[in-house]
């Protein structure tokens, strides 16, 4: 195996984001780190199929997602409801998923269907274009857009931040706008 140092730097440069994505998929840091390692081994053993100059992050994210999905399929017999299990994981091991200050948001995120959560993370946090996210998930661009929109609407409901009172500083402006219909 011959590994170009430039390629290796690109791979290493993607690891932090790849890890954040893995944690969002697994809901467990240890499992996520295993998944990242597995992804890197897989990627480097197939490095010839990577075209230099193309999108390294998208390539690695695709491999990681496929590994996660095939692992999930293997476990499906023991786990009927993946999303329910994901939420349970968060409940029983909150310390494994990261800092407490994000717990409320993380819990809400865990209640989303996995395809919506994944689309939202890829576009909203990893910074992929809709096109790249669609290619990573193996679906149409329109599907990604609709998943992202549904995820955001549902999150707003779950976090109850559609409540007007959550936006304190702007209350006077809102009162004016609300009265403006008369």
């Amino acid at each position: 195996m011959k590994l170009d140092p430039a390629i290796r730097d690109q791979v290493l440069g993607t690891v932090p984001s790849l890890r954040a994505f893995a944690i969002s998929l697994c809901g467990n840091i240890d499992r996520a780190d295993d998944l990242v390692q597995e992804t890197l081994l897989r990627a480097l053993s197939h490095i010839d199929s990577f075209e230099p100059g193309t999108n390294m992050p998208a390539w690695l994210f695709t491999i990681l997602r496929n590994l996660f999905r095939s692992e999930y399929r293997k476990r499906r017999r023991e786990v009927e409801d993946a999303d329910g299990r994901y939420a349970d994981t968060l409940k029983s091991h909150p310390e494994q998923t990261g800092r407490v200050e994000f717990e409320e948001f993380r819990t809400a995120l865990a209640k989303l269907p996995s395809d919506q959560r994944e689309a939202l993370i890829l576009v909203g946090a990893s910074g992929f274009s809709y096109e790249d996210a669609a290619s990573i998930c193996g679906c149409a661009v329109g599907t990604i857009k609709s998943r992202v929109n549904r995820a955001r609407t549902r999150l707003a409901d779950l976090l109850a931040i559609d409540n007007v009172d959550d936006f304190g500083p702007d209350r006077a402006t809102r009162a004016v706008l609300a009265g403006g219909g008369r």
Partner: protein
Amino acid sequence: MGERGKNDEMKHRKTNFETVSSDHEKAETEAPHMQDPMGRPTTPPNKPHARLGREVQARIGQQLRAMYDDVVNQGVPDNIQDLMRRLGDQDKN
């Protein structure tokens, strides 16, 4: 040429969330509740709602990125650095 490609990419990244917001807004505009049962135009009451929608979406975006970046800022864990170093050493042998 290379610079143009770079600019395009940056523009692309930056517009991700704006696109989401405008999609969301469009969905709201097209929603059936635009119809006023009394037969009057309903534009003014809908306006603050659409505006709030953008604020909510911006807030979700911020929280999402804060949570994600918290992990990103941890950098590359030692075991993965070791793994990559081992693979690099294999090349030389």
